């Protein structure tokens, strides 16, 4: 059995959750310690994965079909890195953001720790029922975080989000039931090996995919995301858009490429790809007409999620790596953007674009963070987004599906459209900028650092992509 580094990302946040629930004071220090611990564990895990290949860890000492296994391959390691670093940034931001509201902070920390551990549970689990429990853990903690401050539209959005999330999880559970009925095992590897096309497996695939599409807000089923992500408190909307959405997407990736490879038909992949393309266009169109900044950024999430689903239609190693890399760079950029938007809204009262005019003089750091994050979302060179766009484009060209090329390129332009519309408002000089209250200490800096990391991902993409190829389902991209 390998080292215990694989277990720390799950256990540490859970420990912190109980401690922060138990003790009233010291929640921030505990969370920061957890963050540091998780980063260390994840880095160690990634290095192990890099040189020893995929690691598996049996919990309770029981081997695969009977017991539950944790499995860490390149994809899991990259996702863990994402959740560790973005999570740490959110922790620091939240520490500053909630310093003024003890009643809310009281419940924020346990909920956030639960959400964080649920993400790591999902990234590491290799058992389909265990994934369901992780999914539920994430769903409930996400909604609880959303309704934390108890505003009117946060509550209604939360209610809708909870119902949607439960429906999605139950669909997934039904899929698990059908799979268990057919194969009698719950381990992902075993099912993957024994998979054969049959009505039960097709239905299971359909249910699971639909469930996860609903939780990841793929185009027709995205209705719940904008109100939820825009009305949440800013650190929560950052973690929702950056991490929670990626959890269910990761689950879908795991199922399509490890559990259902034989049962999946190209036509199904095309369906998801087309929905993804439609998401890019639809999300961008709506982002172009929004009056509120956070709603604009929320619709931008709907659009960017579209990019993730294109890899299902392309099915080449480049496309797969491109999609995952997009998820990674989007996490950093979107977290930074929501933080910046949140700081501005918090400082100026409301986030209507007109009231935000001229905020670049008073809050240059936030506006710069918004801009730099925008560069990654537009996929301009030297940014993580560009590398992802480059991989998706070369894959689309390689497989001759040029319509995806146009959509990906056009998406970048549309993103430029709505982001620059927002930036124009932030940059137009206005004589007086009425500041309600000063932003908390570390908040602006965190957003800027995250945005810079998103840019850095463009330059340092080679090692991360190499890590990603370890155990890549469609074979390694590097010859």
């Amino acid at each position, binding site marked *: 059995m390998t080292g215990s580094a694989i277990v720390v990302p799950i256990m540490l946040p859970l420990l912190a959750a109980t401690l922060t629930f138990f003790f009233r004071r010291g929640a921030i220090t505990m969370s920061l310690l957890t963050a540091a611990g998780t980063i260390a564990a994840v880095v160690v895990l990634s290095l192990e994965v890099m040189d020893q290949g995929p690691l598996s860890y049996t919990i309770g000492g029981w081997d695969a079909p009977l017991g539950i296994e944790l499995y860490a391959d390149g994809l899991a390691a990259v996702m863990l890195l994402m959740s560790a670093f973005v999570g740490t940034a959110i922790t620091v931001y939240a520490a500053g953001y909630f310093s003024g509201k003890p009643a809310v902070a009281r419940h924020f920390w346990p909920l956030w720790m639960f959400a964080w551990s649920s993400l790591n549970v999902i990234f590491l689990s290799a058992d389909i*029922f265990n994934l*369901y*429990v992780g999914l*539920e853990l994430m*769903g*409930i903690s996400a*909604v*609880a975080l959303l*309704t934390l401050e*108890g505003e*009117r*539209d946060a*509550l*209604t959005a*939360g*209610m*809708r989000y*909870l*119902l949607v999330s*439960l*429906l999605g999880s*139950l669909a997934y*559970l*039904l899929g698990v*039931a059908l799979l*268990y*009925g057919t194969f*009698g095992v*719950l381990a992902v590897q075993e099912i993957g090996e024994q998979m054969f096309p049959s009505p039960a497996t097709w239905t299971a695939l359909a249910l699971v995919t639909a469930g996860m599409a609903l939780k990841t807000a793929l185009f027709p089923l995205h209705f719940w995301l904008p109100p939820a992500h825009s009305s949440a408190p800013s650190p929560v909307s950052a973690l929702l858009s950056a991490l929670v959405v990626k959890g269910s997407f990761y689950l879908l990736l795991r199922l399509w490429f490890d559990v259902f490879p034989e049962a999946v038909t190209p036509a199904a992949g095309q369906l998801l790809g087309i929905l993804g393309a439609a998401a890019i266009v639809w999300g961008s169109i709506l982002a172009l007409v929004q009056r509120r900044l956070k709603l604009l950024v929320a619709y931008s999430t709907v659009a960017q999620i579209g990019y993730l689903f294109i890899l299902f239609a392309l099915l080449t190693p480049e496309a797969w790596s491109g999609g995952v890399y997009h998820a990674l760079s989007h996490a950093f950029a979107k977290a930074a953007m929501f933080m910046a938007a949140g700081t501005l809204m918090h400082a100026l009262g409301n986030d209507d674009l007109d009231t935000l005019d001229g905020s670049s003089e008073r809050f240059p750091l936030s506006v710069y963070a918004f801009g730099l994050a925008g560069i990654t979302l537009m996929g301009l060179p030297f940014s993580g987004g560009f590398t992802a766009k480059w991989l998706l484009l070369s894959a689309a060209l390689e497989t001759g599906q040029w319509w995806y090329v146009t959509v990906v390129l056009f998406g970048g332009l549309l993103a430029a459209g709505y982001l620059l519309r927002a930036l124009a408002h932030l940059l137009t000089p206005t004589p007086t900028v009425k500041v309600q209250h000063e932003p908390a200490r570390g908040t602006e800096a965190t957003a800027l650092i995250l945005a810079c990391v998103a840019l850095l991902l463009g330059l340092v993409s080679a090692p991360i992509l190499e890590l990603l190829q370890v155990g890549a389902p469609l074979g390694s991209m590097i010859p």
Partner: protein
Amino acid sequence: MTSVTLYALSGMVVVAVCVYGLVSYPHLIRKILAINVMGSGIFLVFLSFSRRVPGENPDPVPHAMVLTGIVVAVCATAFALALARRVHEVTRSSYLPEEQDPPEEAG
């Protein structure tokens, strides 16, 4: 068509009915109820699979899964009801904003 598949079919029918209920009744409590019952339907399907295994005692793993599922369902429903109550406290209506229904239809 052994009797066990009959249970599985009935479970599936429960799920389908709950989906219909979730779709067509706008009242929040009805929706939460639909979701809870759909969970039970799925657990029924799970248990019917445990009986299909040859041998005298049933396969224990689905039982454990159902137990865990029930606890999760309880938690989810509890939180949903509390949230619905909070929504009612704040918005004085037990419907989602997009589906404001006149009270008379609430039956």
